[in-house]
């Protein structure tokens, strides 16, 4: 796999190779999260997109500086609504605990929820409008806490874990394929909220220019040590050029290229650390008594239950853990891009593609998950160039003006779907356990 990425580096450019590598790492983290749920416990979670987006939201809320003006304009109303929600939840919990299950209880809870939503909608309306009116071209939202963005990786995990707790409480009792549909739809609801609550997330207006944990290219290009470093690396190439002005121009070009490679390398380092930590933790968990218990629950729920294991609680726990890992990946993704675009969260890319990675890599095997993340992401990106090459190869005899050939070349970007689909189908058929199947060592 690394060889393939190195080949891209040599033939296309180091910049592309590194950005593929970074996204491979992020995909690997997401896949590990999904793999914990599916491979360890047999829980199917099609809501990966929702947790990814929540992680991204965490990155925004942590790193953006607070917008004082917006807080003054509508902060009070928002806090009041938040307070109302807390009161509502507490009242419902109280009713659930105090009263026996009955029709009246169900209806009164429904009434509380509906009237609460109406109340919040009407009380928060002026505040939300005031916030969104504050310089809408630049801010128009409450902003965040202004902390370094790396903290958001932890907060993203907390957010996603929190959502997973709610979803798990609600949906985990459902049979497998219903759970899949329910989580898919819940994640769509999450995306709808993130897209349209502009006071919190700026919605489809996107948040751009987030802080970075890595230096900026522009700063690097004017730093002395970095220019010297680039000069040293390319001394062979530079010394060939005789003319001093030409040499300076070439050096400038190299510095500009080198700076973006350097920034991407910084990200790669950070992401690698996360992947390695997660890999160690998940491997430890897999071979611990807890991991054995999870497999027992997965393979035979009734038997595990009869042995005194609390299946419901363990399912909820692993659902939260896996989702939290996906949340980390979501925050990492936004950190790398430096921007948060709620409109770009689509189930194809963030749910189904991740599932292809899990299945192809090998469910229940952490190395398989990482391999799946790498292979599938690499193919997803490189599918277009590969299929372009193949089309040109097979239609070499046909003139350029041929309508069919032109049409095929035009639709090259969509061959990635074909490749993914066929890959998934073939793996499911001939190697249902994935490239690296689950290995259980009994020590």
């Amino acid at each position, binding site marked *: 796999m690394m060889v393939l990425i190195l080949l891209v580096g040599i033939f296309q450019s180091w910049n592309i190779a590194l950005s593929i590598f970074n996204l491979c790492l992020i995909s690997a983290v997401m896949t590990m999260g999904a793999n914990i749920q599916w491979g360890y416990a047999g829980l199917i979670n099609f809501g990966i997109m929702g947790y990814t987006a929540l992680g991204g939201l965490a990155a925004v809320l942590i790193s953006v500086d607070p917008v004082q003006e917006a807080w003054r304009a509508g902060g009070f109303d928002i806090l009041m609504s938040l307070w109302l929600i807390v009161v509502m939840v507490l009242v419902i919990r109280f009713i659930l605990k105090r009263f026996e299950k009955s029709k009246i209880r169900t209806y009164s809870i429904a009434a509380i929820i509906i009237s609460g939503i109406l109340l919040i909608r009407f009380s928060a309306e002026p505040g939300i409008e005031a916030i969104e009116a504050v310089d809408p071209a630049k801010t128009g939202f409450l902003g965040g806490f202004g902390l370094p963005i790396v903290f958001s990786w932890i907060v993203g995990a907390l957010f996603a874990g929190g959502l997973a707790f709610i979803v798990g409480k609600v949906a985990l009792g459902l049979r497998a394929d219903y759970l899949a549909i329910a989580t898919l*739809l819940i994640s769509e609801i999450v995306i709808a909220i993130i897209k349209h609550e502009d006071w919190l997330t700026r919605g489809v207006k996107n948040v751009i220019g987030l802080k970075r944990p890595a230096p900026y290219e522009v700063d690097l290009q004017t730093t002395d040590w970095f220019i010297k470093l680039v000069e040293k690396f390319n001394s062979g190439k530079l010394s060939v050029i005789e003319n001093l002005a030409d040499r300076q121009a070439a050096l400038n070009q190299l510095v500009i290229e080198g700076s973006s490679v350097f920034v991407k390398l910084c990200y790669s380092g950070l992401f690698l650390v996360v992947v390695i930590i997660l890999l160690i933790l998940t491997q430890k968990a897999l071979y611990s008594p807890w991991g054995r218990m999870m497999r027992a629950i997965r393979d035979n729920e009734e038997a595990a239950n009869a042995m005194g294991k609390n299946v419901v609680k363990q399912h909820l726990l692993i659902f939260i853990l896996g989702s939290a890992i996906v949340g980390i990946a979501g925050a990492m993704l936004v950190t790398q891009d430096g921007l948060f675009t709620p409109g770009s969260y689509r189930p194809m890319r963030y749910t189904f593609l991740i599932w292809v990675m899990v299945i192809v890599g090998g469910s229940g095997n952490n190395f398989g998950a990482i391999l799946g993340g790498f292979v599938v992401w690499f193919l997803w990106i490189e599918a277009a160039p590969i299929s372009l090459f193949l089309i040109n190869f097979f239609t070499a005899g046909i003139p350029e003006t041929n309508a069919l050939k032109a049409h095929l070349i035009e639709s090259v970007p969509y061959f990635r779907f074909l490749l993914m689909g066929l890959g998934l*189908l073939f793996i499911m058929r001939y190697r249902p356990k994935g490239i690296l199947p689950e290995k259980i060592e009994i020590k």
Partner: protein
Amino acid sequence: MDFINAIILLLNYIFIPGLTYGSQLALGAIFVTLIYGILRFANFATGDMMSFGTMMTILFTWYFQSLGISLGVLPTALLAIPFGIFFMILYMLTIDKFVFKYYRTQKSPPVQFAMVSIGVMFVTQAVVRIIIGPGDRRFFDGEKFIIKAREFKEMTGLNEGLALKSTQVITIFVTIILVSLLFWFLNKTKTGKSMKAYSDNEDLALLSGIDPKKIVLVTWVIAGILATIGGALYGLDKSFKPFTYFNNMLPIFAAAIVGGIGNPFGAFLGGYVIAFSEILLTYAYKKFFIYVLPESMEPEGLVQLLSTDYKFAVSFSILVIVLLYRPSGIFKGKVL
């Protein structure tokens, strides 16, 4: 007078669009529910199969248009639908033979089927995009309106206009015919009854001499008809875009589950439940109240329960609530 105005307003903005959208969802939902009841898996490729059928219909519409064949005031697509259905069924049977059959003979768990259907979803999406491209396409021709809003106003002297698009009438009309035929088939013919028996208890059905191959074949044929017509009607009414079709899969699933999955009649009603709740909850009732209430009580805001951005979220929330309180659906389907 004001009262009639208010009724016309609701008819124009809620009832007719709801009925149309509901019919389109209902056809898709019956498709999902049939596959679920008889082949026993949640088909994630639903939306994309519908877009495949629609694509075939569009290709034939273009072909007929280039030949100069048209139906006059009716859209040419109606003529192309049978050909679309033929190719859709062919595609489905091919996929069944090469993909689903293996897992059926292996008696794989439903989850594995769902995963496989995701593979089919990817492939179908690619095929559609490669053949017709990802863009927005309109293939409607013929007379657009049966009643125009302005003409209606002049005719009746009311303030509110009632616009009736021909696609809306066609959608409702075709749905009624198709669904009544389908229920007649399922309830009265021998094949339909054996399909029901197979869905209720596979082993018992096999023992009583029902041929599973025939059941599967007939299911795919019906599914192909439903998918193509449902997709083509949606495309005629709005427009054809592969991505929208993929997204439509979600309210269709919601409709099927709300109606009780495995129960075709429930799915049919579920489509309307989802469509009407989406429209009722996101419609701004300001104008309606202005007509109905005396002037002193006129509302200031839009009187909208939820903003239209949450249209999809409404149907999903309904689904989640139904799953929690009545997992077998409103109209008793299979128990989960």
